[in-house]
């Protein structure tokens, strides 16, 4: 079966979502990310959605689910590369991706992940992560 590659890059996971994704593929991505997170003990997930020309409520739910699962597994999720037309449409659709960090591109997204993972180090349990 077709799958979206989940790449390990140091402490983080890198996912590039391709266009024209079927719902089934989005569902398997959630499973793949959570199993990789626990296998590699990753501190963050970067999801590049620049190839997506739409984000509907199903894909938005997938992103929100990945962010929620990652948080429980002590990892931060950053979504990068959202096209402006997609952002406008998402907001009009009524979706604002609560709890999901976003960045304009991969570079800024990586900076954000590095900053949040080094901020968590030495602080013990990050209690604010459970307050959502």
């Amino acid at each position, binding site marked *: 079966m077709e799958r979206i590659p989940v790449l390990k890059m140091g402490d983080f996971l890198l996912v590039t979502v391709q266009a*024209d*994704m*079927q*719902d*089934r593929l989005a569902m398997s991505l959630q499973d793949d990310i959570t199993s990789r997170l626990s296998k590699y003990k990753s501190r963050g997930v970067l999801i590049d959605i620049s190839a997506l*020309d*739409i*984000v*509907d*409520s*199903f894909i*938005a*739910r997938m992103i929100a689910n990945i962010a929620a699962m990652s948080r429980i597994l002590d990892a931060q999720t950053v979504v990068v590369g959202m*096209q*402006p*037309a*997609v952002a*406008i*449409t998402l907001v*009009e*659709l*009524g*979706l604002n991706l609560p709890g999901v960090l976003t960045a304009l591109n991969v570079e800024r997204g990586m900076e954000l992940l590095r900053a949040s993972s080094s901020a968590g180090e030495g602080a013990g349990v990050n209690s604010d992560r459970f307050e959502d």
Partner: protein
Amino acid sequence: MPVRLEEDVVRVRQATRVAALACGLSLVDQTKIVTAASELARNTLVHGLGGAVTIDSVEASGRKGVRLTFEDNGPGIPDLNLALRDGYTTGGGLGLGLSGAKRLCNEFHLDSKAGEGTRVTITRWK
């Protein structure tokens, strides 16, 4: 075109994009109608147990537009007002498919009879 399989949802998105481009919709308007098409195609598949969509180019008083009609013979929607409310869901989703699709287009018509099926027509004008 049929909406019977998950692949069909992707095909509906692609066909809607082609039609929206052909009638000269802006990128943002294309994105809106394609997103609405995706929501409604999934509804037809999941709630309507499969159906069909027709995609038409329309013209009225010099304006061009894209019109999509989704039809199914599924169980129908017993309470239209409730189904259009943000956050109401029977499918375990976010409850924004129908209400969100309505916000993303210029015209929205919903006909449904319990036990007979559902027809949703949306239009986005240039």
